[in-house]
């Protein structure tokens, strides 16, 4: 399916290496956009942590603040397991947050507004949770946690739990996709409305007025993007806490259902 390429990265589709295009036509714009996010994150952290000081200043202190506050958040859910899963969960959070925010910059498109990206993220979380479930509890123990407490209800509980487990990546992906694509669509409609109402070819600074109509929605979208990234990574943390308990402590008993 050929998507329209109309962003500030569409020049990537023109590059040819010999007879072939570097980036084929059918690659959706979400892919170069997420590569851009990864590059920006990598470059930022590299620059900040090039010569780590004992007393951090500048970019290093910002990076350390972000990492430490995220790890404290996971500590509230995972307890002592937090340092094990913090890299995965914090990466998930920062990556999803920046991808969501990228769509709010004029000329760029959120990779998470594409269902493929969110399904990929949800399947990754699903695979990680299942892997740790089998690794911590052994294969038999992992199957046992589907059966529930009462053993003679097991033939009933097993399908219910399996379906609930399968519904998790579905709900994760659809929630993130629906929220981000919905808010991007609202901003698009507002900008179009502003262009229709206010564009009189005045030139100069007055050209920016049509975009001003979307400014409150962009502010709201920044907040909801943050909340959705938090929700996604928090749910991943809750699912991980449900399967990978080394120390037998029951922290913050959040309902673990789809």
């Amino acid at each position, binding site marked *: 399916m050929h998507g329209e390429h109309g962003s500030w990265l569409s020049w990537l589709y023109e590059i040819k290496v010999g007879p072939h295009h570097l980036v084929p036509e059918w690659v959706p714009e979400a892919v170069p956009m997420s590569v851009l996010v990864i590059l920006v994150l990598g470059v930022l952290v590299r620059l900040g942590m090039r010569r780590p000081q004992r007393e951090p200043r500048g970019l290093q202190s910002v990076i350390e603040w972000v990492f430490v506050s995220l790890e404290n*958040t996971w500590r*509230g859910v995972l307890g002592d397991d937090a340092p094990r899963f913090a890299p995965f969960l914090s990466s998930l959070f920062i990556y999803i947050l920046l991808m969501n925010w990228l769509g709010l910059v004029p000329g760029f498109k959120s990779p998470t507004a594409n269902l493929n990206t969110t399904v990929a993220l949800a399947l990754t979380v699903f695979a990680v949770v299942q892997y740790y479930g089998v690794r911590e509890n052994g294969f038999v123990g992992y199957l046992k946690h589907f059966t529930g407490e009462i053993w003679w209800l097991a033939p009933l509980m097993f399908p219910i739990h399996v379906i609930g487990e399968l519904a998790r990546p579905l*709900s994760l992906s*659809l*929630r993130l*996709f*629906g*929220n981000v*694509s*919905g808010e991007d669509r609202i901003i698009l409609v507002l900008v179009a409305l502003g262009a229709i109402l206010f564009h009189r070819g005045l030139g100069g600074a007055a050209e920016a007025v049509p975009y001003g109509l979307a400014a409150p929605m962009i502010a709201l979208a920044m907040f909801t993007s943050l*909340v*959705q990234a*938090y*929700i996604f990574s*928090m*749910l991943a943390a*809750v699912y991980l806490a449900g399967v990978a308990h080394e120390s037998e402590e029951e922290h*913050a008993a*959040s309902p673990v259902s789809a």
Partner: protein
Amino acid sequence: MLYLFGLVTATGFAVAVAAFAGALGQSKAIVAALEGTARQPEASGNMRTLLIIGLAFIESLTIYVLVIAFMLLPKLPDTPKILELLK
């Protein structure tokens, strides 16, 4: 014609009903969180986390309906076709 009428009505009303039901459910969660915070301000951090998670669960149901509405939206015919059908 009846089919198109049903399609348009369903697309419009689905989102409206989902928004209403979602708001009702979320308001209950927020009321509970506010009362808990008023009773014990020092536990508000924990409550805030649970509130946000609960709100996201409820909101995702509304978002599912929005996704279905978005899927139905291209199926609605545009004005020339409707005028032709009305003849």
